[in-house]
């Protein structure tokens, strides 16, 4: 077959079923890329060659016998190294856990195996998913995540390896996680499609906990369609995770398809963004208007979303990592600021945490009321292209902090977001479009994303030299 590196999941699936390629050949192809190119981007923690080839052989046997597990049958993938996978270390990106062996599979890993996908690698991430307050790209024992578009730029975090691996064609798709921005940033900086599902849509069992009430797991892939196929495999209830919702999700979701959609834009969303980001977003609006009406000037209900999210994360992370702090091994973290970033959380006042949980309730209702007025809210995913890898985050692009953003509110309130490359900006680096919707509205977001990607070709662009 032709080079499978940049093929979508359906394209790879057709090749497998037409016997133009075997699952073993696909696994070999992507394992070789992971081994050869993974270190270039500091994207990989562990390549699972023997396990992947064994799984791939089994998938080939099954297909030969007529057993087809569905769209992900035989498709290689990588998992952010906060997901437990039996037989491999699960490092959480952090030196103190580098050799940690969790002898079980996360529910997501189990579900993907049942769907036929082949786990090829555990992928790099920012240590402890960024929960200690990192301020630089060099915040993982694997080194700073490097964007395949320019190794001198950050791949984003905390799902750094997931974004870079998909972007560089090391895997067709990957699983990332987001508590606050950790799929959004690498999707944007690496120019891939990322989906942050509704909180509870995907079981968190077996995933490192940073914030029990804000952590979400989701796919990163080439296209919205790919993300939908992966989400369909990993969504659903799980007795091991009480927060996992028993709400059906099928892809494609016919009920989400409309002749014309209603989109909204936050007032001021384009303020203080790089000119290229603004230009590309306006181009995106032109494509979206082919099948959607766009209402401008929406305003987020007035709640202190970012403040609530910070308090919730501080308090929950303080408990989640109390033993790390108690042990003193927090000093082994890579970024200097992370080594002391966990102490302040130890004295978050209980009444402040509880108040944040109480205010979140009316805030979520108010946000839902806004989102109910439209099918989705669109905006630039980020105000700039990928940041220079050696810059302190608080020093990068000071002229472009961005305008009104829905990110903090969306993460706090657990609503889904889809991120799609929508062009190139400064230095030829990717820019990205963000689509945010109501809780459990992934079907609508994915339908809009598919329509957008049918009209554009940015998801087909590949980093230079690859």
């Amino acid at each position: 077959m032709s080079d499978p590196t940049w093929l979508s999941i359906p394209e790879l699936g057709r090749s497998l079923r037409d016997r133009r390629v075997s699952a073993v050949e696909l696994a070999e192809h992507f394992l070789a890329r992971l081994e050869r190119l993974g270190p270039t981007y500091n994207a990989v923690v562990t390549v699972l060659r023997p396990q992947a080839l064994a799984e791939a052989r089994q998938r080939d046997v099954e297909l030969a016998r007529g057993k087809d597990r569905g769209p992900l049958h035989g498709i290689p993938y990588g998992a952010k190294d906060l997901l437990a996978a039996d037989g491999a270390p699960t490092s959480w990106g952090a030196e103190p856990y580098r050799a940690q062996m969790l002898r079980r599979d996360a529910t997501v890993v189990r579900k993907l195996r049942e769907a036929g996908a082949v786990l090829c690698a555990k992928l790099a991430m920012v240590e402890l998913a960024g929960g200690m307050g990192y301020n630089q790209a060099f915040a993982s024992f694997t080194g700073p995540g490097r964007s395949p578009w320019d190794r001198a730029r950050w791949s984003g975090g905390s799902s750094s390896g997931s974004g870079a691996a998909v972007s560089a064609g090391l895997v067709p798709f990957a699983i990332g996680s987001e508590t606050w921005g950790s799929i959004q940033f690498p999707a944007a900086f690496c120019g891939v499609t990322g989906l942050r599902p509704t909180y509870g849509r995907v079981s968190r069992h077996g995933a490192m906990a940073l914030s029990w009430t804000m952590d979400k797991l989701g796919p990163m892939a080439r296209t919205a369609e790919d993300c939908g196929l992966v989400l369909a495999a990993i969504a659903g209830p799980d007795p091991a995770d009480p927060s996992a919702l028993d709400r059906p999700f099928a892809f494609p979701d016919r009920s989400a398809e409309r002749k014309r959609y209603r989109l909204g834009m936050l007032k001021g969303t384009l303020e203080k963004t790089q000119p290229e980001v603004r230009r590309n977003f306006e181009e995106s609006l032109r494509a979206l208007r082919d099948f959607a009406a766009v209402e401008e000037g929406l305003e987020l209900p007035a709640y202190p979303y970012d403040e609530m999210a910070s308090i919730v994360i501080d308090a929950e992370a303080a408990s989640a990592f109390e033993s790390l702090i108690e042990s003193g091994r927090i000093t082994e973290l890579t970024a200097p600021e992370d080594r002391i970033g966990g102490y302040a959380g130890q004295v978050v006042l209980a009444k402040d945490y509880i108040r944040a949980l109480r205010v979140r309730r009316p805030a979520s209702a108010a946000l839902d009321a806004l989102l109910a007025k439209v099918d989705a809210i669109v905006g630039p995913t980020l105000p700039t292209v990928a940041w220079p890898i050696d810059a302190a985050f608080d020093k990068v692009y000071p002229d472009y902090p961005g305008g009104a953003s829905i990110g903090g509110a969306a993460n706090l309130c657990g609503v889904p977001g889809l991120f799609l490359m929508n062009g190139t900006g400064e230095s030829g680096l990717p820019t990205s479009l963000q689509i945010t919707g109501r809780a459990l509205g992934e079907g609508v977001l994915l339908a809009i994303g598919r329509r957008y990607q049918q009209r554009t070709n940015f998801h087909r662009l590949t980093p230079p030299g690859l």
Partner: protein
Amino acid sequence: MSDMKRREFAEAIAFAGLAPLVGHRAGLMSFPALESGAGVGDPASLAKALTGAIRVQYGDRLREAEFEVITHQIQAALERAAKLRKVPLSNGDEPDFVFSPVRSPSVG
């Protein structure tokens, strides 16, 4: 901390940038200088007092410069909490979690 001057570090963690989980511990961009009396008395004093709790537990492993950073982080967190107090809540406004005494679907 050895490779970063104390002041630079304090500025770094206090920044207001748009970043994934970056700066969430410190003063975010929407915050003006701390106002005293924002619902918790003087947050600067409270931050110092809470730093004392850290000092009691972990004083043997942290340096003064690090305590200074931690105090700054605590103060910023208190400032954030003060923002939340501006949202009116009644006694019946519950936190958004539900405790379930049932641990197995087969029980009961």
